[in-house]
């Protein structure tokens, strides 16, 4: 973990005091709603359907055990005993009182956390993958760069009022597990001539106009990455559209200019920065200072004989190991993925307020913090699929860890499977959503409760968004579900063939939308069609890629024709 220095501490604490003052002035009527809006958004505070929501930053998704305990305290003391982990590796509290927010932020600041720039038209939390530093296919840990860029972007005075929000993600692995192609800037860290270099992709984003980003620069030297980003942001800040919120993301500017003309603008800007001696650069000393926090020497392990025995003895454990553990580059150690998506019955989930993928109770957070201390260097990571990861687990510790996770309902063996659903909170919480995603999620999880069937369907991603804003990333789900409204009724549009990763693809709509109760059946038909047509070990998405959507579409509309409706134009 990166440890704050005096500068970081002072900055975060003075920011808390500033916001305390702003809240008081808002409540006293000295700040209008309009004036208060960007101030609160830049401190992570949203107004939702029922209450205020506070989104706390978890930089690049890495937390210490103490920090997770602090979040549990916040959940108990200021919320309803749970928190919601998001697809951008942050955590949200849904039932917050405005007057408590300064105290919450102060409490967080003492644990080196904040909510700065988790919303607003500024650079948001810089994300990476949950297996950073341990992934077997990784070149090097990208988190020191993410931390340096976090510091650079935090309260950068020039870029707090961009045309629209701005999201950056970094990966350093062969396989992209951070959805970098769907970000305003995607960074791929790789090695060339024994130097770390960045491929810089620009202009991606989902939402109303889903676009995958394009290559801007192929080989930026690591020390120049802040300069490259500054040049991009300055061009965007000056020329991005501000007349229409839906056309204000950088993807629209890149598309309007074309990637080559956009590159020319950025190169020109960067040249001017260099000429005037104001191009920021990372020094070797700074990289070394920040990197120290992420280095975790692990003891060499003695040969372990118990693990194999437990695999043979306990089929439940073996199944969980198959689906929820990942090998690491450090031999003998594995990463464990903790599913936040158990069967709805295990969740105490009700129809009135179903638990959301990504929800953890304060009790679960505390227990997990202790497990991290006992087995995992006191570190917890958040995945963009809204699950959690404990890395650096010695193989011999897996069995006791699994038992403890089971007691907390945190050992559902469904990682990467159909019930490992990414969903936004939807209409139950969000005032933008025009449909309820959580009951649909729960209904699918209830229908697919046979573990053997899930194993047989294999690796598949299912993403659900409650509106066009696409917080559930439905465009890049192997199966994507989008909630739309038609004549005051909720309908759900289905896409298939989407995919994240370096070869990311957007899904295709299979046809007219469905009502909520038809969706589990549609999913069943889609997966059955796959099981009929698949070749050898082909995955669902590869099968769709090979066959096209026609056989899937035909099967679905043959089975469920009656309940499908033509979506209105506004919904397409």
């Amino acid at each position, binding site marked *: 973990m990166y440890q704050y220095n005096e*500068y970081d501490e*002072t*900055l975060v604490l*003075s*920011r808390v*005091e*500033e916001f305390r*003052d*702003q809240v008081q002035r808002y409540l006293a009527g*000295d*700040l209008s709603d309009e*004036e208060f809006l*960007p*101030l609160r958004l830049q401190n992570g505070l949203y107004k939702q359907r029922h209450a205020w929501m506070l989104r706390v930053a978890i930089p690049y998704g890495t937390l210490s055990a103490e920090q997770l305990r602090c979040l549990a305290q916040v959940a108990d003391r200021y919320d309803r005993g749970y928190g919601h982990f998001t697809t951008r590796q942050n955590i949200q509290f849904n039932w917050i009182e405005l007057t408590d927010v300064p105290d919450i932020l102060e409490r967080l600041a003492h644990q080196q956390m904040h909510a700065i720039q988790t919303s607003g*038209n500024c650079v948001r939390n810089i994300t990476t993958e949950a297996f950073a530093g341990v992934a077997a296919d990784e070149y090097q840990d990208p988190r020191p760069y993410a931390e*340096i860029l976090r*510091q*650079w972007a*935090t*309260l*950068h*005075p*020039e*870029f*707090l*009022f*961009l*045309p629209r929000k701005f999201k950056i993600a970094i990966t350093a692995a062969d396989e992209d597990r951070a959805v970098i192609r769907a970000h305003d800037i995607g960074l791929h860290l790789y090695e060339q001539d024994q130097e770390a270099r960045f491929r810089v992709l620009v202009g991606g984003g989902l939402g109303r106009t889903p676009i995958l980003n394009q290559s801007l620069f192929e080989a930026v030297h690591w020390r120049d990455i*802040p300069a490259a980003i500054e040049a991009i942001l*300055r061009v965007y*800040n*000056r020329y991005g559209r*501000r007349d229409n919120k839906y056309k204000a993301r950088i993807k629209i500017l890149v598309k309007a200019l074309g990637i080559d003309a956009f590159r020319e603008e950025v190169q020109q800007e960067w040249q*001017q*920065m260099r000429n*005037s001696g*104001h191009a*920021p*650069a*990372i*020094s070797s000393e*700074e990289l070394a200072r920040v990197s120290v926090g992420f280095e975790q020497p692990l003891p060499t392990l003695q040969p372990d004989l118990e693990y194999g025995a437990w695999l043979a003895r306990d089929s439940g454990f073996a199944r969980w190991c198959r689906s929820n553990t990942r090998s690491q580059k450090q031999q003998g150690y594995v990463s464990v993925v903790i599913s936040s998506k158990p069967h709805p019955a295990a969740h105490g989930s009700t129809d009135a307020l179903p638990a959301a993928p990504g929800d953890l109770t304060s009790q679960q957070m505390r227990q997990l913090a202790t497990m991290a201390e006992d087995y995992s260097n006191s570190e917890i990571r958040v995945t963009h699929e809204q699950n959690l990861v404990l890395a650096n687990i010695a193989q011999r510790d897996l069995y006791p860890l699994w038992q403890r996770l089971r007691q907390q309902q945190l050992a559902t063996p469904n990682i990467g499977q159909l019930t490992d659903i990414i969903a936004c909170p939807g209409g139950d919480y969000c005032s933008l959503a025009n449909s309820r995603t959580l009951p649909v999620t729960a209904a699918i999880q209830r229908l697919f409760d046979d573990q053997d069937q899930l194993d047989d369907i294999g690796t598949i991603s299912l993403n659900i968004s409650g509106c066009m804003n696409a917080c559930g990333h439905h465009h890049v789900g192997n199966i994507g579900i989008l909630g739309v409204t038609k004549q005051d009724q909720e309908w759900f549009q289905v896409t298939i063939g989407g995919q994240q990763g370096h070869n990311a693809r957007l899904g295709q709509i299979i046809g007219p939308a469905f009502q909520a109760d038809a969706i589990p059946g549609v999913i069943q038909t889609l997966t059955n069609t796959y099981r009929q047509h698949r070749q050898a070990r082909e995955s669902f998405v590869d099968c769709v890629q090979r066959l096209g959507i026609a056989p899937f579409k035909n099967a679905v509309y043959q089975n469920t024709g009656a309940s499908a409706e033509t979506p209105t134009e506004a919904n397409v």
Partner: protein
Amino acid sequence: MSQLISLLSGQPVIENNDRWQPASASVATLPVMSLEEWQNAGCPGNAGLQLQANDDPEQLPAAALQLPLICLWFERFTDGRAYSQANILRRRMGYRGDLRACGDVLRDQLVMMEQCGFSSFLIRADKNPQDALQGLQRFRYRFRSDV
């Protein structure tokens, strides 16, 4: 009361003797002109220049950098273009005169403006400048510019 806050030896103070007036004002001793007005007047050296958010500082004639005052316009306080203009004028082009924020200028953005190189702030007419002063006095966290 004056709506103008200036930095004096780095400290913000209310400036009661603002000598600048729009060129259209009848008693314009020191006129502030739009780019067009200034160029039509033959680029006089004793004028103040009012830029709009889409004006490009790098396209200005060299004489502009010798002017005593350049004003940047915030159409709305959420429009961040003038921050980039300020940064370019100060850091890249080396402008040394008074760089003034005008328009929708509010207390809670003054710290950012100052850090981008603004040296005076014409607070929106309906806001209390005494109150706005605190925006520069109470919370002066600095951005970490040395990467």
